[in-house]
């Protein structure tokens, strides 16, 4: 599928501001979101992430303003109805039209846009998503994963300028999730339009997002680049079992005897399992706080091989009084830009080690996930 071209100049960011009450729930958000890449709207249930997405789509008509790539979709004086907004929306449930075949579902939006503004052809979407064998089937004969693939194709075939996805994986079983995830990962390369992705799963955020917005009780607590925002200790995500950082790295060296590869980043490098990674390939590393421990000396008489010198920057207590989270910067004294990692340890260990901001430590990294 050819990428959707922008109109010559650089696209403008999405600017939005909404303020409303849904019953006893208040939404009060003002954000500027990047014009490219995937922005995750992350929050627990009741945080207002789906409400925000519906406001952006125009499915909820509330006070506020919204402009996408310089076009005003909503402000004090006007409200563009949903069907006139050049967006696509993938719902949590695939919501295919039960009275139409897969082909007619895919064609539904495709036929309703001006042929001159089509940037994605029917055959391209069908080929990319592998929908050819399903075309003449009825939606009720499809598996959950197949349905969601059709829903994604149906959305993309409207050649949207903004793609909204509301937890597209959460209604799927593990097998179907694995089937859909690769397509979502490819959205980066396939599309040059912004994607807003609502989720409550940190592993999806780590895999897919470039930009992260953290929502709680209808307010945006943070909005920033993924790597920086995940390393922040002042956000509720730190309490998540899956709290951790994402590091952008490149494969710098391979050890074919032991099937390992060295992933290099600002301030250090980590050996990871080599699953056929090419030299120079850009990868995402996900390091969870619970897989990182701290030592005052580099211990080589133990099984953990990934040791990184670092400096403690912050220590915060977690929801349980026995646990603290430590943010340490690898390569703080040598590299131009250091990389933050998080470690989860007991408050007693932190006290025994006399940890304080500035303390030099060794990060012992027990496990790393490589997200390509």
């Amino acid at each position: 599928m050819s990428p959707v071209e922008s109109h010559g100049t650089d696209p403008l960011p999405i600017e939005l501001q909404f303020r409303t009450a849904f019953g006893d729930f208040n939404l009060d958000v003002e954000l500027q979101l990047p014009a490219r890449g995937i922005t995750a709207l992350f929050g627990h249930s009741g945080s207002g992430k789906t409400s925000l997405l519906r406001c952006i789509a125009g499915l909820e008509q509330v006070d506020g303003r919204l402009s996408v790539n310089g076009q005003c979709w909503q402000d004090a004086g006007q409200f563009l109805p949903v069907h006139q907004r050049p967006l696509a929306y993938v719902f949590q449930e695939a919501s295919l039209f039960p009275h139409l075949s897969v082909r007619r579902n895919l064609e539904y939006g495709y036929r309703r846009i001006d042929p001159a503004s089509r940037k994605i052809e029917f055959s391209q979407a069908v080929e990319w998503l592998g929908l050819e064998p399903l075309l003449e089937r009825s939606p009720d004969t499809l598996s959950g994963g197949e349905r969601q693939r059709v829903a994604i194709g149906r959305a993309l075939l409207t050649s949207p300028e903004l793609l909204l996805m509301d937890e597209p994986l959460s209604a799927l079983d593990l097998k179907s999730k694995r089937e859909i995830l690769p397509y979502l990962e490819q959205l980066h390369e396939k599309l040059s339009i912004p994607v807003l992705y609502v989720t409550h799963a940190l592993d999806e955020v780590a895999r897919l997002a470039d930009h992260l917005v953290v929502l709680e009780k209808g307010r945006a607590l943070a909005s920033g680049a993924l790597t920086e925002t995940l390393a922040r200790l002042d956000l509720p995500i730190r309490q998540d079992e899956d709290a951790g950082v994402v590091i952008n790295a490149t494969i710098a060296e391979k050890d074919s005897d032991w099937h390992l590869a060295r992933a290099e980043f600002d301030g250090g490098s980590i050996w990871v399992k080599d699953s056929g990674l090419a030299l120079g390939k850009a990868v995402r590393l996900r390091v969870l706080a619970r897989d990182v421990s701290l030592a005052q000396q580099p211990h080589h008489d133990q099984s953990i091989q990934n040791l990184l010198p670092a400096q403690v920057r912050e220590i915060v207590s977690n929801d349980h009084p026995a646990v603290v989270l430590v943010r340490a910067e690898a390569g703080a004294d040598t590299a131009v830009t250091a990389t933050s990692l998080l470690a989860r340890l007991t408050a007693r260990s932190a006290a025994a080690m006399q940890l304080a901001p500035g303390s030099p430590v060794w990060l012992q990294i027990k496990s790393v996930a490589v997200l390509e």
Partner: protein
Amino acid sequence: MDFDWEPVFLTLKLASVTTLILLLVGTPIAWWLARTRHWSKQPVAALVALPLVLPPTVLGFYLLLLLGPNGPVGQLTDSLGLGTLPFTFPGLVVASVIYSLPFVVQPLHNAFEALGDRMLEVASTLRASPLDRFFSVALPLARPGFLTASVLGFAHTVGEFGVVLMIGGNIPGETKVLSVALYDHVETLNYEQAHLLSGGMLAFAFVVVLTLYLVNGRLNGRLNRGGRR
């Protein structure tokens, strides 16, 4: 034996015309009732349902006054050169439309309400305008409701008696429908003709209801299996 087919054909004609008009009139009313949050929703719904509980003769009486030469509608139709409607076929149609209205509006209302918002929201994000959404999504998904509405509207019109007697009278070829003809036969002790009409109606009613159940069972099955995910 000489069977008088005229009331049968007249009845079928009346029921067909009435059902057609009811589908055209009832669909927007049902759609509005299913979608609106306006305060007048309940009063309007009650008004539509009124013929369900009102004795047909009461309805017929008021219609007679309303459409008659001294009624406001009667004076209007008269001044338009249409004459007055009571004791004519068009008058019967008007009365039947009102009398059978709930039998068409309620199944449609239920069908539209069962659609929920999701499918229409999906259609709107796929660039379908409100009218487009109605025709491309709501109508096809509400098909079982339309079938039920048509059959009930038709069958109920076939069976009406009180309203016809009040506003239509007993004019052969104009207002003498099946139920009135049957009443006539019994009055004149013509049991043979009465048997033919009644037996025919019994068979007709059973076939209609059975067909409705069979077809709707199949339609619902197909839509529900694919529907809600």
